[in-house]
């Protein structure tokens, strides 16, 4: 991890009209660090993630991002062209439902290759080789490269979505409940894979989840949200083993022990 953060979020607030989405969120994210945002549904996790990933305009506050050229830019003040370029090269977004993040009607290879072609890659053979390499890394058999994702299982789709996002070597990946719709054994495998990829590539990630086990496995730090506010933040192990806020204590103690 380097000494300089990748993302600095200051007083980020999002209102939907008069209704609060999230308020006064402050944090810094360092390269290679995984931050989990946990909380019950309706607590503002997804609003915060969508605002951070520039899908939503905040009501107030700013998010400064250290670009590849080391300049600091407020992501809400980028031009639309710059923002779209950033989101498809230096960022990734893994949706809970893979159908939202994939093109379901084109082959797996084209799904992985799309970002490469978007940044100007025009050599079919090279694009295909890269796609094959990435399918291998997310444990999808090479002979499925020309199949459409609609013929894939839920777990495979999610892995394909991850490959599609990581192919341009992003530095920051947003994940919204990446293991949400999967059964437990597939979840475990996906988490393993994610942890390995994040470690290998030195990615920073912001993961929204309501599953504390996911946070425990993946993240270095976590923020607990309630009613749009961050009520507790700290190292994941510290927050989970020694929760300070009554709500966090309740959350941690409500995990079923089998």
């Amino acid at each position, binding site marked *: 991890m380097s000494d300089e953060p990748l993302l600095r979020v200051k007083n980020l607030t999002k209102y939907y009209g008069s209704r609060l989405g999230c308020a006064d969120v402050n944090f810094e994210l360092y390269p290679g660090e995984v931050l989990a945002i946990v909380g019950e549904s309706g607590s503002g996790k997804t609003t915060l993630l969508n605002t951070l990933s520039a899908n939503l305009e905040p009501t107030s506050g700013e998010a400064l991002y250290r670009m590849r050229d080391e300049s600091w830019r407020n992501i809400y003040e980028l031009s*639309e*062209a710059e923002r*779209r370029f950033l989101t498809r090269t230096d960022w990734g977004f893994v949706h809970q439902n893979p159908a939202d993040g994939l*093109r379901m009607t*084109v*082959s797996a*290879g*084209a799904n992985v*290759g*799309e*970002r490469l*072609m*978007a*940044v*100007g890659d*025009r*050599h*079919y*053979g090279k*694009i*295909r080789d890269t796609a094959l390499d990435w399918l291998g890394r997310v444990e999808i058999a090479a002979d499925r*490269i*020309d199949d459409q994702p609609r013929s894939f299982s839920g777990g495979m789709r999610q892995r394909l979505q991850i490959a599609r996002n990581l192919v341009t070597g992003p530095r920051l990946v947003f994940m919204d409940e990446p293991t949400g719709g999967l059964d437990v054994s597939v979840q475990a495998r996906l988490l393993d894979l994610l942890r390995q990829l994040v470690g290998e590539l030195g990615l920073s990630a912001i993961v929204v989840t309501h599953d504390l086990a996911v946070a425990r496995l993946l993240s270095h730090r976590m923020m607990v949200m309630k009613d749009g506010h961050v009520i507790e933040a700290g190292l994941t192990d510290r927050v989970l083993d020694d929760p300070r806020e009554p709500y966090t204590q309740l959350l941690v103690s409500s995990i079923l022990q089998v």
Partner: protein
Amino acid sequence: MNAVANYNFAYLDEQTKRMIRRAILKAVAIPGYQVPFSSREMPMPYGWGTGGVQVTASIIGPDDVLKVIDQGADDTTNAVSIRAFFAKVAQVQTTTHTAEATIIQTRHRIPERKLEAGQILVYQVPIPEPLRFLEPRETETRKMHALEEYGLMHVKLYEDIARHGRIATTYAYPVKVEGRYVMDPSPTPKFDNPKMHRSEALQLFGAGREHRIYAVPPHTDVVSLDFEDHPFEIQHFEHPCALCGAEQVYLDEVILDDRGGHMYVCSDTDHCEERREAGHVGVLGMQEAAE
């Protein structure tokens, strides 16, 4: 006064023509950009070339000579009815000869004879948006055009190669105009794409149902999209035209009987006729002469 006098010259009223001409001027100024216009109901169904007819009606003058082709042919229903339409409402001279025409309205072909400065080619376009089947949201495709995000177009070509081993798109093959806008050249065969490149003639595209006009001014770069290792290629035909013996032209397959007999003939009927008049004969053309 006869019944025809009830119509304004070339059917459309002058204000409508003015509106369409403004759209055309804008389209010419921004090659390949789809300009919205207020498309009118025309006395023919959508899909029969209402866009092309409106463009032609707006640019045609009493001195113009009009040629209309449908899939290269002057004698098919669509071509005959549109030609008759303008002969009636604009009393213009019509022709089937490419060289004589000042305006050529076309559905899906560019004439084989090289077009010259001063000629205008008007295309009938069913779907002007090249990204439509990849990205159905119009708001999104407009944004993609505005920001020059055309990676998706290559996803389509990638899919072709992955499935068929080569770029299997044979018509409506996407082109980049003057290094900026990606454009659908309407469902012309990709055989005709190279003819659009730096053409001396003005090319206008009208999509009536979709309310869009776009244009390629003369001497404009029109480059077909491709991959470095799968370059753009046009169709090749193994045999020359069976009637006139022409090579390097676009051929149609014509079924002759119910025992698998068929022949390939020029899709451009005017080109074929002119060649035969000049004495060129193909394999079946000889038999025809002998019978």
